[in-house]
């Protein structure tokens, strides 16, 4: 039966392998360039010392050269859903569409065994391709992430939504989920093209919901009490606001004109605008800081510490693999309800 699965799906497997080889070659070449530049310029060693301000010029040069390559990250976000659309959706839907299930299901192999061979074969290929690619992209991104983490002083750029999704183990989970979603929708809809469309929509829907509403709460965030406009806590900032001793709330990331009026009422001599430059800038900053201390202004931040990164990766991986298993289970249950 493994022969049948291979013979039937080898074209898709080859097309997929071709696409991945192409992308892989690109990732390898640019990744080597990036990694070489990261080490040879001394940037790698420089930013090992945290908060070392002297690396800023080096990191600027690095980002000018390679920052634009982050655009390709979008490609890697899309890859898993391609597995769902081009491998998952046609798996059963093509048989139903062409009526070949009447041939397959009347040989001496039970429908469940038939399904498990097909899903097993394509699932194994997907998991393998997903793992290889996740590893490759993780390696590719790591200098970019290190430099970004250094520049925004978060220490955990890889935790950010949009970047978290690209590396580690989650891409494998996404790919398996997309595959199972395609399989299930293909079985229910019974037509390849509509099933592919539904897979795309469903995948995006689930990913967005998990990313926006579930991921921030996998573990209750930590709360940090920070200096106003000072550095963020190390990790993924989920929510932040600033408050002073009187209970007045401020945005955590800047000062509005009404804030300035408020500060001037409490601290005469508070600089008129944020844009004070030149020799007076230092004086202005000191005055402002003194005022913040005086009104008791500080920032409250809810954040996921950088140390939770891998825990979050495995939780999200488990969620998507769990969804994939549930979807395959649904198809296994449904395929024996005879309706053709």
């Amino acid at each position, binding site marked *: 039966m493994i*022969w049948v699965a291979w*013979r039937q799906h080898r074209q898709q497997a080859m097309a997929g392998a071709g696409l991945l080889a192409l992308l892989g070659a690109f990732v390898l070449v640019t990744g080597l360039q990036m990694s070489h530049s990261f080490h040879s310029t001394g940037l790698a060693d420089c930013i090992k010392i945290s908060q070392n301000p002297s690396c800023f010029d080096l990191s600027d040069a690095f980002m000018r050269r390679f920052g634009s390559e982050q655009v390709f990250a979008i490609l890697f976000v899309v890859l898993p859903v391609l597995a769902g659309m081009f491998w998952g959706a046609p798996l059963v839907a093509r048989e139903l569409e062409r009526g070949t*299930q009447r*041939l397959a*299901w*009347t*040989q001496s*192999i039970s429908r469940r065994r*038939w399904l498990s061979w097909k899903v097993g074969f394509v699932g194994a290929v997907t998991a393998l391709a997903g793992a290889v690619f996740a590893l490759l992209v993780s390696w590719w991104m790591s200098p970019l992430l290190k430099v970004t983490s250094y520049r925004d002083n978060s220490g955990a750029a890889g935790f950010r939504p949009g970047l978290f999704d690209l590396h580690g183990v989650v891409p494998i989970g996404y790919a398996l989920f997309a595959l199972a979603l395609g399989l299930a929708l293909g079985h229910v809809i019974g037509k390849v093209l509509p099933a592919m469309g539904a897979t795309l929509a469903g995948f995006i829907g689930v990913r967005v919901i998990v990313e926006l509403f579930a991921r921030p709460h996998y573990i209750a965030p930590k709360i940090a009490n920070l200096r106003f406009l000072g550095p963020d806590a190390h990790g993924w900032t989920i929510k932040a606001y600033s408050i002073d001793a009187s209970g007045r709330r401020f945005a955590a990331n800047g000062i509005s004109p009404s804030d300035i009026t408020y500060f001037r009422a409490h601290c005469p001599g508070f600089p008129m605008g944020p844009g004070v430059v030149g020799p007076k800038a230092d004086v202005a900053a000191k005055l402002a800081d003194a005022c913040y201390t005086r009104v008791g202004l500080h920032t409250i931040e809810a954040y996921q510490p950088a140390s939770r990164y891998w825990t979050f990766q495995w939780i999200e991986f488990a969620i998507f693999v769990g969804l994939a298993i549930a979807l395959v289970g649904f198809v296994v249950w449904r395929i024996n309800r005879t309706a053709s």
Partner: protein
Amino acid sequence: MAGALEAQSLAKRYRKKWALQDCSFVLPKGRIAALVGPNGAGKTTLLHIAVGLLEPTAGSVHVLGGKPAENEEMLSRVGFVAQDTPLYDNFTGADLISFGYHTNRTWDGEFAQERLAALQIPLDQRASTLSGGQRAQLALALALAKRPELLLLDEPLASLDPLARREFLGTLMESAAEYEITVLLSSHLITDLERVCDYLMILSNGRLQLGGSIEDLVEQHRVLIGPRRTGVKHHAISGVAQVLDESVAGRQETLVVRVDGPIIDPKWEEYEVTLEDIVLAYLGQKDAPAETKKNVRAVAARKAQ
């Protein structure tokens, strides 16, 4: 005697429409049976239930003493050639034989290869590039290579030209005789199957109108031709159990009847029925399809001879 295929009050409903209703029959083993009925009569539904592709809404069906497709052993004993002979289009003949080898318990790949060689169907050509006749032969060879005890074929002749039909039926008959396979094949035309079948089942509007061995059926039915008589009930004719069809041509009247005794009345000339007469008469029983009209002409033509 246990039947190869038995149904009790079988019924199947799709949403609101009944595709099959109150269908009961026993197809004895060893028969070559024709399942005849117009398009949409429920033939495909019946066959799909028998091979386990569909679940009946009500009633039960037994195949070789078991439930359809209840396990892999049961699947291996029944061969099926579906309508329009679905094959994997990008598989070659050799691939399809290999497919059968990998998905069946018993598999006579050599038989399939020999069959295709004898019919000069290339093994290395993709199924999508074969002619309709070659596809049908390939599908039949695959179904036979399973070494089934019961072989079901859904409209296998529909897309074949007369020569291909003859070749197809030739293969089928040869193998059925050699391996003692019970065969049930559906068609909307009885003329295709007349030469090869010894059992007939007529399906119309989701109901089984008639089922029996052809020998018995021919024995039980007659065409009667006599003078036109207005106002007289036909069942008054002694020896006639049921008038199935009547048509008038000039001053003469032609009846297709089921008999339960000798026809004594000298006014009626008695003729043997053809299978086509029987099929058309029974199909005309309820919601007469257009084909009944042909019956009138067929009988009139016989009288003219």
